[in-house]
């Protein structure tokens, strides 16, 4: 009886608590490194897919000559673009530190690259929120 109660409690405990991480910490980890929030919760398939896909989109975006936005309060479009880029976490900071993302708008592909990187950032925010939801038990 006691064993059954213990197993029921374990089954009802969100994964985030079971693996010893706070849900918000898993969300932040997922934001910093795509898929890390899922990896820490032993969701290996999702972690690999998110890591590969988001890095591929961000890397292709930079290789296409995409532009990374900067913090500019006076321009709402640049500000929104910066927030979208920021969603990519350490990938964004690494690219900025490496001096990448200066933009090559002389051809259409550069414009596409900007969109690729923005999409990578926004998808990464969604995956980080997904990691949080799993940790608090809203998702399986």
């Amino acid at each position, binding site marked *: 009886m006691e064993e059954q109660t213990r197993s029921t409690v374990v089954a009802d405990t969100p994964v985030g608590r079971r693996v010893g991480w706070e849900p918000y910490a898993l969300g932040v980890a997922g934001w910093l490194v795509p898929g890390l929030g899922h990896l820490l919760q032993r969701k290996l*398939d*999702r972690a690999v*897919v*998110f890591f590969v*896909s*988001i890095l*591929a*989109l961000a890397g*292709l975006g*930079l*290789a*296409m*000559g995409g532009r990374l936005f900067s913090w500019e309060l006076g321009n709402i479009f640049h500000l929104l673009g910066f927030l979208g880029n920021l969603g990519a976490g350490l990938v964004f900071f690494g690219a900025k530190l490496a001096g*990448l993302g200066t933009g*090559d708008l002389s051809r*259409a*592909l550069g414009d*596409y690259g900007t*969109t*690729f990187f923005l*999409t990578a950032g926004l*998808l990464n925010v*969604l*995956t980080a929120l*997904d990691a949080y939801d799993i940790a608090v038990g809203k998702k*399986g």
Partner: protein
Amino acid sequence: MVAGLVDALVLTHFQALSVFAFFVSLVFAFLTKQRMGARARYFIWSFLAFLLVGLALGWLMYPFPR
């Protein structure tokens, strides 16, 4: 090195659309579905929908070059 990569990476509009649709559909499928069968079906549906809508919008905008 990056400059060389940028010069080397030349994609047509359709190739860029296909690569974009592939990765976004993959992430959406794993975010929204739990079982592999459902993920595969959602991925194929989303990927084809991206291509179809992209082609349809391109076709609609064809008479308006600027």
